[in-house]
């Protein structure tokens, strides 16, 4: 969207400079997250009349935060590679809704067993991602507009299929286990989230694919001249995004126990916010999964922590306040990211006198 592009940030860790490591974006975000957490732990925890600790500082609440951040977290994981290639995918939230509906329809109307319906839903997600991929790579169309179109299309299909009113419910217990119970101590869906995070993290940071994504994000033409299969790599990124959106759809359905056409409305914005907050450059080329996870956590802790504050509880405005603060946080993070550059420009330039005459020596 913009004409400027940022120079690649040389990995500070690679230079072994610990001071740079402590001030890099992910670490700053970690400090913010810790500060947030400590603040809410102190201000949001209380003891009720029967002497039981309630509020933010309980394990139940912490698990709740994890449970509720899985879907947006998955979408953020899907968007990280996309944004690293200097692309964008606005359609993931709508695709979540469409996949949830189709999953419900396959199981309820199609009479398919749950695992088969799940498999088909994942396939549909990948196919929908492939539609984005074909339009973006084969026709070289701008991702913003293509996914704006599919944003409308996917949500519209979900609404058309359900005629705006059908909600699929009454899923079997063993399916709801994915979204509502715990397994090995953590909410079940957290394990799925962690595995996807690991998979995407490995893809992005430990394989040549990840390197290709970065290169494409920095200089698509250069990547082409370097012999990278730019189209195929870009296609992979969007298909992957579709697939992960389908996983998020299944988890969403299992958590709420129902599939509705408006599932995931507006999630794409929170996911993009988390990714950008996590330090991924919207111009492409740089970004880490660790940063994205921290971004997701910062938003999730903020939202849930606010809900535990007595002041906010009285106003019943946790949703709005967290949204407001998330937006403000994003603005501050953005401004902070360019501030050093701006300040160095504003500083009066030292006059560089050209010494043509050597100083007289005594």
């Amino acid at each position, binding site marked *: 969207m*913009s004409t400027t592009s940022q120079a690649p940030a040389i990995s500070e860790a690679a230079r072994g400079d610990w001071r740079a490591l402590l001030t890099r974006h992910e670490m700053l975000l970690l400090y913010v997250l810790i500060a947030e957490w400590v603040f809410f732990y102190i201000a949001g925890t209380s003891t009720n009349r029967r002497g039981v600790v309630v509020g933010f500082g309980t394990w139940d609440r912490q698990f709740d935060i994890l449970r509720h951040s899985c879907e947006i977290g998955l979408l953020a994981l899907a968007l990280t590679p996309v944004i690293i290639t200097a692309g964008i995918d606005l359609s993931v939230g709508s695709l979540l809704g469409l996949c949830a509906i189709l999953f419900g329809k396959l199981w309820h109307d199609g009479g398919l067993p749950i695992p088969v319906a799940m498999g088909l839903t994942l396939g549909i997600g990948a196919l929908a991602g492939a539609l984005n991929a074909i339009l973006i790579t084969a*026709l070289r169309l701008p991702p913003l507009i293509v996914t*704006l179109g599919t944003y409308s299309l996917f949500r*519209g299909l979900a609404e*058309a299929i359900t005629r705006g009113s059908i909600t699929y419910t009454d899923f079997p217990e063993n399916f709801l286990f994915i979204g509502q119970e715990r397994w090995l101590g953590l909410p079940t869906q957290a394990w799925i989230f962690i595995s996807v995070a690991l998979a995407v993290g490995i893809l992005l940071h430990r394989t040549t694919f990840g390197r290709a994504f970065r290169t494409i994000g920095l200089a698509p033409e250069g990547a082409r001249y370097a012999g990278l299969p730019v189209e195929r790599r870009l296609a992979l990124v969007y298909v992957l995004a579709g697939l992960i959106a389908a996983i998020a759809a299944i988890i969403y359905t299992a958590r709420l126990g129902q599939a509705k056409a408006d599932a995931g409305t507006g999630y794409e914005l929170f996911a993009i916010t988390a990714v950008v907050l996590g330090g991924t450059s919207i111009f492409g080329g740089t970004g880490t999964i660790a940063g994205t996870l921290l971004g997701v956590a910062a938003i999730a802790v903020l939202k849930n922590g606010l809900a535990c504050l007595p002041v906010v509880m009285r106003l019943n405005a946790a949703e709005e306040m967290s949204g407001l603060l998330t937006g*403000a946080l994003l603005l501050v993070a953005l401004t902070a990211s360019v501030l050093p550059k701006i300040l160095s420009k504003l500083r009066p330039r030292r006059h560089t006198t050209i010494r043509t005459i050597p100083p007289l020596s005594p």
Partner: protein
Amino acid sequence: MKRYFRELSVLGALLAVLLGLALLAPAFFSPQPLLTLITREAPTLVVACGMACVIITRQIDISVGSIFSVCSVCAGLLAARGWPLALVLPASVGLGALFGAFNGFLVAVLRLPSIVVTLATMVTLRQGLNLVRQGEFVNLPDHVQWFGLSQTAGQLVLVSTALGLLVAQALAMRHIAAGRYIYAVGTDAETARLAGIRPQLVTLLVFVFIGALTGLGAMMNLAQSPQVQPLTGNGLELKVIAAVVVGGVAISGGRGNLWGAFAGLLLLACVSPALTHLHVEAYWEKAVHGAIILLAVIADGLRSRQSNR
């Protein structure tokens, strides 16, 4: 002819839809419902004119929906307090311009990417409004609806305002230096700078401009109903961007004009009544919108491929 092929093809599609409606559902063309339909799209048209400028300078603004809501509610509150319309109107326009200037400052001066900046302001403004208003409606005094005129007269005032703005701006962008600057900056900012244009200033002003137009659009929306609901602008940004892009304004900047955007807007606006008159369920509207957007960009892609060969 060849130069405006893209715009003419949208116009052709629009005429085809209208012709189809004329044959299958002549009731669509009865004057009063048609006027109501066009009046409802008038605020969108005003915002779309601004969006065309923003996209031509190779930027984007997805905060217009939130700015629209905030301006509507603020203008509504002022009107409810008994401010005369002659003061509420500039207040709404000014407020919009202020938000636009904020976006423009971050984009043009701090050189942040417009999509993220306006995403952030969109979320902040929307949630801020929800927080303050808690979804409460604003009831408007009687003199606000249709500006105190009869309904038809009010509708005609709104439609002619929107069309007047469209014509004036389209001519300005074609024939006035300031209008050409917008194309110059969008085509190549660095070349524009070397030619003596200040790209940053142009970008800033374009954002102020779309903000002001959004404030005006909010005011035009206010005049159409007896109360303001705080979610009134939700989704406006995507509707406007879709209209502009369908109308042939290239997202890569520097190409397109307002006539195309106007045709695109009308084409998308016709979908809902067309579905109703053809007895298709209204739930298909969004899907059809999406399909139209995709068809438009696919056509663009195929054409640019051909011209590259």
